[in-house]
């Protein structure tokens, strides 16, 4: 309602009714707030102003000072805390660095969890890096508490703890500091519920603050050779939008080096395959990874994606040709397993699109080997595709 400078902006931007409200109306609203009781002040500040309204922000700044000096000490704690929460939110949105100290006082001194969380987020938005250690401490504390709370079954406290962790993660993400990386890493590895979204957000926050992805990924790789480490690497790879070549490359490499039968990571595997496909070096590890995929029992979707990705590099095509040669030989001996037929079909289709003339040899063999009709037909089509290129 009260977007600041709306009157001047109206000459420039016609975005009514989003920015209805003028300078005189905003100033009048401030006067009304000054004359209102605490509850109505809170209501108006919370609802009647755009969160980035700097006139409301200036008023909030002044009010926070007087509130901290005990202006509303005769009011109930709940009412004062609700007011402080709205003030802190506004100051966070308006980037009021000069109020960081007061907000930090609330963060450290309040026994109201909601107010602590709001203060943490506001400190992050303001960019108050000087207080990052305390936010990190609170996050690490939440991380350690989480396991204990799960085992003890304190449902309400558990949710509170997750909300606190969430706010700290948002704060560290806003602060963009390298020292935030380790606690976020630990958060990603902690036992937060899926619904809370804390782990996922921590991974995303890491992707935002990571300035040198290669070194961080190597660091993860050195520290975590477990499936958790791979999960995290692939999180980063996925969240990076695959724009940072090194990150994708390294994620793909580490993935291909470490791929095992982790069915629960199917989603990450798909992302890793996409990463392999985008890699400009066509990754050293592709060969090894592809062999594992071809001979493993992964989901058809995943296998199909990996095979399609393989055709983008010569090593991958060679692996596919070798696989088909081997399977052709088994078939001639009558030893092919029925389960392999689907994979063979995928390989034949991909070789047909690969444009590699060397693949033609094994397609010709496949046409005449003892395969079921649909595979022979596919080999014939693939061969025609290949020769037409």
């Amino acid at each position, binding site marked *: 309602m009260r977007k600041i400078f709306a009157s001047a902006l109206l000459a420039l931007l016609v975005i009514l009714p989003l920015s209805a409200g003028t300078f005189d109306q905003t*100033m009048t609203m401030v*006067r009304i707030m000054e004359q209102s009781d605490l509850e109505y002040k809170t209501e108006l500040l919370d609802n009647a102003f755009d969160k980035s309204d700097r006139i409301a922000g200036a008023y909030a700044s002044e009010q926070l000072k007087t509130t901290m000096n005990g202006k509303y000490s005769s009011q109930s704690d709940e009412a004062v805390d609700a007011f402080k929460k709205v003030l802190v939110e506004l100051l966070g949105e308006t980037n009021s660095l000069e109020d960081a100290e007061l907000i930090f006082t609330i963060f450290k001194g309040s026994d109201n969890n909601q107010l602590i969380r709001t203060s943490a987020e506001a400190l992050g938005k303001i960019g108050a890096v000087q207080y990052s250690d305390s936010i990190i401490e609170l996050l690490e504390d939440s991380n350690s508490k989480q396991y204990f709370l799960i085992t003890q079954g304190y449902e309400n406290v558990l949710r509170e703890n997750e909300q606190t962790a969430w706010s700290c993660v948002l704060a560290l993400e806003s602060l963009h500091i390298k020292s935030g990386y380790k606690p976020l890493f630990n958060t990603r590895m902690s036992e937060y519920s899926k619904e809370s979204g804390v782990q996922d957000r921590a991974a995303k926050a890491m992707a935002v603050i990571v300035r040198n992805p290669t070194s961080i990924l190597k660091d993860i790789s050195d520290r975590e050779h477990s499936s958790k480490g791979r999960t995290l690497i692939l999180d980063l790879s996925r969240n990076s939008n695959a724009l940072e070549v090194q990150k994708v490359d390294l994620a793909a490499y580490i993935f291909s080096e470490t791929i095992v039968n982790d069915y629960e990571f199917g989603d990450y595997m798909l992302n890793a395959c996409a990463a392999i496909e985008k890699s400009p070096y066509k990754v050293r590890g592709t060969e090894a990874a592809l062999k594992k995929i071809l001979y493993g029992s992964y989901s058809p979707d995943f296998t199909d994606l990996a095979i399609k990705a393989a055709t983008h590099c010569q090593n991958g095509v060679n692996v596919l040709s070798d696989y088909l040669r081997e399977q052709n030989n088994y078939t001639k001996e009558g030893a092919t397993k029925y389960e392999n037929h689907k994979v063979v079909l995928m390989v034949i289709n991909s070789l047909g699109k690969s444009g590699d003339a060397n693949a033609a040899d094994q397609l010709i063999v496949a046409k005449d080997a003892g395969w079921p009709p649909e595979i022979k037909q596919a080999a014939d089509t693939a061969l025609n595709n290949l020769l037409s290129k």
Partner: protein
Amino acid sequence: MAKRLAWLLLAACLILTACNTTSTQKKETVPQSATTVKEQPKKDKGKAKAKEQEKDEEKEQEQQSAETGIKFTKIHVPLTETKKENGHMTSRSVYTYGQDKLNPERVETYDVHNELIELVVIEKIEVRTERKSYLDKDNNIIRYYVITRNENGKIEEQLLFNGSNKLIAIEEYDYDEAGRTAEWRIYNGSETLLSYNVYTYKNGRNTRVDSYSANGILAQYFINEYDKNGNLTCESAYDKDDNLLAQHRSTFRNGLIYREEFQGEDKKLQWYINYTYSEQYLKVLKTTYSGDGRELEQVEQSCLLFDR
């Protein structure tokens, strides 16, 4: 989905009920003094100060308006808006427009991970009534306005509700025969008048606004100044004793805004905004600084241009 639809229907019913009750009850609560005061001659307080400032302002305008002879006559209509704080992108908003191409029907704001964090939806609920709702990332309504317009499309009444459907404030507008704002009244959620502002025009421009408390006593007044091209260049707020409370100044060149400044009662610069435009004026970069020059935020808008 079904649950949400049911909830929205319930909310719509509540709003309609609220509209009916407020429009009947409110008229009774407007004190006679509001209309009586409207007819009183406007006080001349602050005129001397305004004149002094006018001179300075004109001088400044002449210096700053390096007119190229081309006056910008288009309207910027934003399509996307990217916000950066502390050098990092924090959010991106996407505007969707209705048939008139000027008024957005929907504004979606996404965070740095491209996840929706806020949604503003404007929807018609009656012929001249619309609802503007602010929703959070989980689609919960945080607050909403029910806006009623007159036959000329101008806001007649605006009701503000919080997320729990509690009426927080009511605004009413009156217009003169030329369709200009004549009076603005604000009530609390119990429909008690809190304040009203009366607008005065000179040479077709709003030069003064008097703000009265509910009992008809002048509480504040505002002086508006314009450059020779009719751009609003300075808005000053004074208390009833002529003390300056705040000032908002704007600089225009060729019809485009280039700078805004805000000063508090201590006359200290509190923040300022610089505007830059791309060559074709399709991009507007708005950078806000604190009074001591610290960059607070940067907003880049990609716009379409329409004739005024």
